[in-house]
C-alpha cells in the first residue's frame, strides 16, 4: 500500500490580507506548480486548500495536485474566524481519510499548515480547536502554524501542535512566500522519509519549538 499524507493548507483570507491578495494568489499558484511538477511529492502528499475569513471555503478538495488544472483565485475580506475553519477541517479529515483508505492508501496522520496574519475574531474558537486536535479522536491532525502581520504569538502557541513559525519582522508578502517555501520543503522532506519532517529553516521566520508536541 502506498503511503499518503493528507495535507491541509489553511489560508487566512480575511480583510487584513486584502492588500496582499495578489501575492497570496501568486504564492498559491507557485505552490500548485511545485507540487504538480513533482510527482513524488504529489503522490505522497494529497493536498486540500482551505480559505477562511468570516466563513470558510474549501478552495481545493483533497487532490493529487497534478490533476488540478490551476489554483482558483482567493478574494480576501471579512473577519478571522478560526472556529469555523477548525470545524471544517475536522469534517474534511473525517471524509478524506476514509476516502484515501478506500483507495488503499496507508494514511499518515493529517497535517494542517495554518497560515494567518491576524488574531481570531470569534470567541469560541478554542472549543472547535479542542475538538479538532482531541487525542481521543484517532485522526487528530498535526498543526504547523505560520504567523505574520498581526498574528498573535500567544494564540498561535496554542494552535501549533507540531511546529510554530513566527515572522521575524519581515513584511507580509515576504512572509507568505517564506511560509509556502517552508511548507513545500516540509512536504519534500517528508516524502523522502515517509514521515513528518518539518523544515525548520524558513526564511523570514523564527522557529519556535512547540512545548508539548504531539507524538504518535
Amino acid at each position, binding site marked *: *500500500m502506498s503511503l499518503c499524507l493528507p495535507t491541509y493548507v489553511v489560508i487566512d483570507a480575511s480583510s487584513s490580507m486584502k492588500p496582499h491578495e495578489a501575492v497570496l494568489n501568486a504564492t498559491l499558484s*507557485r505552490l500548485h506548480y511545485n507540487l504538480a*511538477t513533482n510527482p*513524488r511529492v504529489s503522490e505522497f502528499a494529497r493536498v486540500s486548500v482551505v480559505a477562511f475569513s468570516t466563513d470558510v471555503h474549501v478552495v481545493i478538495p483533497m487532490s493529487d495536485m*497534478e490533476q488540478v488544472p490551476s489554483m482558483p483565485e482567493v478574494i480576501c475580506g471579512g473577519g478571522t474566524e478560526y472556529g469555523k475553519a477548525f470545524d471544517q477541517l475536522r469534517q474534511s479529515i473525517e471524509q478524506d481519510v476514509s476516502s484515501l483508505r478506500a483507495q*488503499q492508501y496507508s494514511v499518515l496522520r493529517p497535517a494542517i499548515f495554518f497560515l494567518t496574519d491576524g488574531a481570531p475574531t470569534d470567541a469560541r474558537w478554542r472549543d472547535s480547536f479542542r475538538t479538532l486536535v482531541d487525542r481521543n479522536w484517532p485522526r487528530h491532525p498535526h498543526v504547523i502554524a505560520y504567523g505574520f502581520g498581526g498574528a498573535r504569538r500567544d494564540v498561535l502557541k496554542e494552535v501549533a501542535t507540531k511546529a510554530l513559525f513566527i515572522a521575524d519582522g519581515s513584511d507580509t508578502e515576504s512572509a507568505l512566500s517564506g511560509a509556502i517555501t517552508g511548507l513545500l520543503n516540509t512536504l519534500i522532506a517528508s516524502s523522502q522519509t*515517509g514521515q513528518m519532517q518539518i523544515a525548520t529553516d524558513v526564511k523570514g521566520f523564527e522557529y519556535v519549538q512547540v512545548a508539548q508536541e504531539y507524538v504518535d
Partner: protein
Amino acid sequence: MTDSDPVAGGGAPAVDPRGWALPRTVGLADLGPLAEPISEHNGQAVAVRPLTDHPGWLAKLYRPGLHQEDGHRIDLLISAPDTLPETERATLYAGTCWPAARIHEPGNPAVGCVIPMAPEQYRSELRRGKFSERRFLEIDWLAKSDESIRGVGLPRPGFEGRLTACRQLTELAAILEGLGLVYSDWSFSNAFWSPEQRSVYLIDVDGCQPKKMPDIHQPNWADPLTPPGSDADQYTDRYRLALLVAKCLTGRRDASTFHGVAASPWPNQPAVSEVLLDMLLATDRERRPAAAQLNQALNNGPYLRAVPRPTRTPLPQLPPVQAPVLRPQPAPHAIPESPTVTRISTVEEKQKDATGSSTKWIWVLAFVVILVVIIASNH
C-alpha cells in the same frame, strides 16, 4: 593504507577516460577553489560543490564521521571499472556519476569524492500554467502516463521511449550486480531521465557497497522480504529495480502497476512480464531473477528460468474506487492518438447479452419452421 596511498596505477595519476586530470586520491586543498553548493544536506552529503578549476566536476562532501573503511570502500568503487570490459566501462561512465577520486585531508580519509556533473541533456523545461523552470528531470516522470508527461510540456515517451530507458537502467544494474555491488537506493529520486535522448543517468552511486549495506528506506519502495533493520543485498536491489522498471514501463505507480505487468502487454518482449513478476512476487527472495536476466528480456530475449518455478504471492488488490485499466502502454507501433476506454462487461450484462442472443435464435428457428411448412404445403 594511508590517506595519500595510490589505489591503482602504481602511484601515477590514473587515466580517466572522462577527463579527470588529478590522481584518484586527492587532498581537499589540491582541488582548488570550490564554488557555491548546488545541493546541501542531501542524504549522506553535506554539500555538493562545483570545482572551479575543473569544469564539469563536483566535490561531494560527506557528513563528518566517516571512517577509514569508507575510504577503502570509495577507493574500491573508483577502481572497480578497471576490471570491466571496455564496453561495460563506457556504459557505466556514461550512465552514472561514478566517482573519479577520493577527497581526503589530514585526519579524515573520506572528506568526500569527486564526481562528474550530470550532463546537460538531463535538464528539461517543465511548464505548467504561467510557470516554467529548467531543471534536472528525475525518472519519476517516466512513472506517469504519456498524457501527464505531455501536460508539463515534455515530449511523450511512448512505449519505445520507456523501453529504451528501462533497457539502460537494467544494463547499469547488471553491471553493478556483476561487480558485486549493492546500490539499495533504486527509486525515483536517484536517476535522471532525458525524454529527448531517451537515456537515463544514475546518481548517488558513490553510496554503493560490496555485498550488503544498510537498507536505505524510501516510502513505497520497501522490499516486503527484507525485514526492517536488516541489510539490503543484491536480492533487495533486484526487487527495487523490478519495481522501478515496472512503474516506468507501465506509467503507473500504485497496485495497478503489478496488474499492468501481469497483463503482458508487450508482444515483442514476451519474457518481460514473467521476469518482472518473479522479481516482484517470488516468495523466496533468493529466487528473484538477476538484473541481467531482466535486461535480456527487455532486449527481446528469452527468460531462462530455473526449475521448479519460484512460487509467487498473489497480485496486490486493486483500489476499488479507481477502476482498473489493464492497458499500461499500447503495443509498439500501435499508439492510438486518443485514449481508449476498456469497458469490462458485468455479469448481468453478459447474461443480458446471452439472453438477447438466444431470443434471436428462437425467432430464426420459428421463421425456418414456417418456411418449411409453407414449402411443404405448396407441394
